[in-house]
């Protein structure tokens, strides 16, 4: 396979993984927040990446532009009577039981929301034609008010895009950056389409500036190909990412999940639940041979209906703070000590008990081996903050620490139930893949609570995102609302409606250099019973309407526990995912262990508390473990950026990829 380097820029660290054939190199450095490209290019130089390597990038530039409200000055044009749809949203307030709310940020201010007279009906007829002269007048005003970017969202434009296109052409002629809803999201529900299109308009110019300047630095080093990670877990060219930056806004966790999925699949497990536990929050997701996706994402309350990974996030992580509430319950989070001052045991002035402190108090961390020994954890500090709380709750410090983990794990268990059981999947048929700084510490306890039989800890749980960037497929997604009754359409109707989407996918991938043997076109339909208003996406395996109906009834039965074979089925959206399949790597050349006994990798022993008892527990160094070594709990495995806790009752081995695979019993 061609050489490739994955560069993932996070809040604290910039991670790089370089792969060429069997060779793999890793580098981690501090991010440069003011200009992320600085650390990016520094990392490339430090790794000595050759100029011919493809550069695959995971960036939160678009995400941060939204979170920090630093996007482009954006205007919006809507059908007359509807310019407030953006602020009215779905008319619900963000919390049920609050008497006041902070004023909400709106990406397009009142004086930049415009209307044009035009109207298309639900059947796609033009009820009121658009007047080009009115368009010109409005666009003059858009420009006069200093807008750089323009979103255009007209009612039912997905049935008849002509009006939007006319506005788009004239706006581009005026030098505006243009986002048309019929291009970005040709699907019904005007608020969600408006929000998605507006956010694209808001972030794309920022993304374009960032990627353009980054490309200059890359070209000087000989790199001609720059790819960017999307929220869906698929790769996009930099050129497209500049126009459709909305597709990257929720990409933060996507590369990690992609990395976890590829690592586990190569190891032989493609039904996995990923568990990414960081300092303040935890992300979980599920793959059943393919990564589950959704189009129901949002940021700061603004919906984003482009494909993203179906990730569920809970506000509990290593830094979550424990306290006693006035009713006497032990609460953990959502307040977090963050990285500054951090948990009490960091010794930087943190004076609240956190999940990390609880892990330390129970012996699950090795104080002098934290972050590869660059930081020593202060057990006494953790003990001091625990004592007061323990007294208030009438518990011993040990019982409190165990309680903190129990409460935090209960939250995470619920998160996994949401993405598995509530979606119709039985977690007992899956492998748990923990990663992130704290994931491998909690993974096996969670697996036990959910009956998950196997846990796979990737070789490099701390750089899984950068690794995922080097492994992800190239993906384009297309959709269109049709709103048909399934029993009224023929196989021919479906085939000819899908044909343009399929053709577009094939062409775009050919343009990116994929030959037909590596292009996978995956058509799907969003279906529902007529009268419902949530759709299920069902992969299209046949054009025969009866076969499609059967597949839908089955999917509905599995997800919701019932089907209505006699009810009419509605085809809401057509979807096509075009995938450019990237070559998968061969196993690295790790030397085999001479025997299953991991004695050579043993670097210590300490007391660890499991199930209310202190047990003498060996400590192993991950870097010294070799394929073929076998481990049995209780054990700790330490490495630079993660500690794996193996409770009694679990045993495992190192596979040929260097992963740790544990099973119950």
């Amino acid at each position: 396979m061609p050489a490739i380097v994955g560069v993932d820029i996070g809040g604290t660290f910039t991670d790089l993984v370089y792969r060429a054939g069997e060779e793999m190199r890793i580098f981690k450095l501090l991010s440069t927040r003011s200009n992320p490209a600085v650390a990016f290019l520094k990392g490339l130089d430090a790794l000595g990446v050759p100029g011919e390597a493809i550069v695959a990038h995971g960036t939160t530039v678009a995400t941060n532009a939204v979170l920090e409200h630093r996007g482009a000055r954006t205007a919006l044009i809507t059908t007359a009577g509807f310019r407030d749809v953006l602020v009215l949203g779905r008319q619900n307030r963000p919390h049920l039981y609050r008497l006041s709310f902070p004023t909400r940020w709106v990406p397009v201010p009142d004086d930049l929301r415009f209307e044009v007279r035009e109207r298309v009906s639900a059947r796609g007829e033009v009820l009121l034609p658009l007047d080009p002269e009115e368009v010109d007048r409005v666009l003059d005003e858009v420009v006069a008010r200093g807008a750089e970017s323009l979103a255009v969202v007209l009612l039912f434009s997905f049935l008849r895009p002509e009006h939007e296109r006319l506005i788009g052409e004239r706006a581009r002629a005026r030098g505006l950056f243009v986002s048309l809803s019929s291009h970005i999201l040709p699907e019904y529900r005007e608020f969600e389409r408006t929000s998605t299109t507006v956010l694209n308009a808001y972030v794309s110019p920022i993304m374009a500036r960032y990627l353009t300047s980054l490309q200059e630095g890359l070209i000087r080093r000989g790199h001609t190909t720059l790819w960017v990670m999307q929220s869906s877990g698929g790769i996009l060219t930099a050129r497209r990412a500049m126009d459709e930056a909305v597709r990257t806004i929720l990409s933060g966790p996507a590369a990690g999940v992609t990395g976890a999925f590829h690592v586990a699949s190569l190891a032989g497990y493609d039904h996995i639940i990923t568990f990414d536990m960081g300092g303040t929050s935890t992300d979980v997701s599920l793959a059943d041979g393919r990564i589950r996706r959704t189009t129901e994402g949002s940021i700061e309350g603004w919906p984003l209906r482009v494909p993203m990974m179906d990730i569920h996030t809970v506000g509990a992580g290593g830094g979550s703070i424990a306290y006693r509430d006035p009713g006497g319950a032990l609460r953990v989070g959502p307040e977090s000590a963050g990285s500054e001052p951090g948990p009490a045991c960091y010794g930087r002035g943190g004076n609240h008990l956190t999940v990390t402190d609880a892990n330390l108090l129970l012996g699950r961390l090795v104080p002098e081996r934290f972050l590869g020994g660059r930081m020593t954890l202060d057990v006494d500090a953790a003990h001091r903050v625990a004592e007061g709380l323990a007294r208030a709750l009438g518990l011993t410090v040990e019982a409190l620490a165990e309680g903190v983990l129990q409460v935090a794990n209960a939250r995470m268990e619920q998160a996994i139930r949401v993405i598995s059981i509530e979606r119709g999947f039985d977690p007992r048929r899956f492998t748990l893949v923990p990663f992130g700084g704290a994931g491998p510490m909690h993974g096996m306890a969670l697996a036990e609570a959910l009956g998950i039989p196997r846990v796979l800890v990737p070789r490099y749980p701390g750089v899984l995102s950068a690794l995922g960037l080097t492994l992800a497929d190239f993906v384009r997604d297309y959709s269109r609302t049709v709103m048909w009754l399934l029993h009224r359409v023929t196989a021919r109707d479906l085939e000819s409606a899908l044909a343009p989407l399929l053709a577009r996918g094939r062409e775009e991938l050919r343009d990116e250099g994929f030959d037909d043997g590596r292009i996978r076109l995956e058509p799907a339909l969003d279906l529902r019973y007529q009268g419902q208003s949530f759709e299920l996406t069902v992969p299209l395996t046949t054009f025969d309407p009866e076969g499609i109906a059967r597949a839908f009834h089955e999917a509905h039965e599995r997800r919701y526990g019932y089907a209505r074979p006699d009810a009419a089925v509605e085809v809401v959206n057509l979807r096509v995912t075009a995938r450019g399949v990237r070559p998968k790597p061969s196993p690295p050349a790790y030397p085999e262990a001479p025997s299953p006994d991991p004695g050579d990798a043993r670097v210590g022993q300490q007391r660890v508390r499991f199930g209310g008892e202190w047990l003498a527990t060996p400590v192993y160094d991950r870097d010294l473990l070799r394929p073929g070594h076998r481990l049995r709990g209780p054990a700790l495995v330490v490495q630079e950026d993660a500690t794996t806790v193996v409770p009694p009752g679990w045993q495992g081995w190192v596979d040929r990829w260097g992963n740790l695979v544990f099973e119950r019993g």
Partner: protein
Amino acid sequence: MDPVLLEVMKSMLTAVAEEMGATLGRTAYSPNIKERRDYSCAVFDARGEMVAQAAHIPVHLGAMPLSVQAALARFDHLEEGDIVVLNDPYFGGSHLPDLTMVAPVYLEGRLLGYVASRAHHADVGGMVPGSMPLARELYQEGLIIPPVKIQAQREVQQAVLDLITRNSRTPGERLGDLAAQIAAQRIGIRRLQELAHRYGTDTLTTYMAYLQDYAERMVRDLIRRIPDGTYTFVDYMDDDGFGTTDIPIVVTVRVQGEAMEVDFTGTAPQVTGGINAVRSVTLSAVFYVLRCLLEDDAVPTNAGIFRPVRVVLPEGSLVHARFPAAVAAGNVETSQRIVDVVLGALAQALPEVVPAASQGTMNNLTIGGVDPRTGASFAYYETIAGGMGASARADGLSGVHVHMTNTLNTPAEALEYAYPLRVTRYALRRGSGGAGRHQGGDGVVREVELLTDATVTLLTERRRHAPYGLHGGAPGAKGENLYIPAPEETLAEPLITLPRQGEAIVLPGKVSFQGRRGARIRVVTPGGGGWGKPRERDV
């Protein structure tokens, strides 16, 4: 009591209710249930006391416990596999469209508790499509269902299903919604059994009781922080739609130490039109205010919350109606005013916390008739957002649902696909929020064109009495309902007698009439009240 297990069981039991809600919300048919999330699910202990409820819609807060009590009063023994359904407002319900299901949960022959779900069904018969009519007595409002078994010993009772669907204008939709609700009940049963398996039946039932004590402690802690005293407030309902106007709701809140009394003595007697609130609705409104003051979403909504509070409701009054008073709008309109008066009283005790009045109505609009595209009858029901009251902390939000509801709108594009209607305007009503140091939120203008002749019913409030401001803040603007006739439409009763405003006819707050194809209904919703003197506003 173990503080760790308390917290773990709290999240586990709340998750049971939430998982039921996720099932119901996603599988239901009525837009009311799916898009507008007009439903609730809850878990009860073996004595029928509520342990946890998923937060979906506040107006169901106090009503669910009465449903379980009604089911238990009717059937002294519910067997495994039984599910009871009911909607009788005078026997466990709130208004007729809200159908509640209650099922016992057993494990190895031992009763663990009950699960219940309540959902607003789009049509249960009665005078007008949508079953939110302007009626004089309960019988006109739709099918009354006392507690009956819709499932007995695991067998769905076809006769009960037939009876309900035959009484609805949209039987297919009813069937789908009932199936979704039964599915939610089954999920709840299974999850509660799993918890008993995992933690032991004794532990589960013990902690169900502890969680009520816990919520009680949290509320006592809250009440302790409210200054002792007696606080009185009065506000008015506009009218009942049958000639009675300016109907007072009076509340006296007495706070002493950790206890609170909420006394509605002095409130007007029940009226002819359906703005009467049954007891459960009034309890929900009081319950809602307490929940808001707690400012902690992690406190489970359960029976413990009510223990420190005594609610005094004069029987036969607007806030505790006697059978067979009509009640359709008590749930959606009067409940809002009850919140307004309780907050108005508490504003004297907690000036920094309590906001000015919000729009105080849900602006219920129902349009029904025959869809010319299919020949089938349709019933479209929506509630429309308005302005939120300002507080010491912030301006009020604009164009949101307030207090007792938080249902979603139906997107214009979804509405036009599904019904012979066209949305012609959906906008903020600028300047309608009351002025103040903090400004009230703006109301909304929503205009819908009829593409076929249809029955239109409006149940709205705050058309005569504006949402109050506080501490020198101005009231929010009153709402307005307009009818813009079709070109060359010949007007009939009652439209012909109503006042005009240019091309438009000004409709009363509560009205039912035949609208013509090509005419438009414009609902202009109230703004929220302002807080503090306008001249103190930071610019």
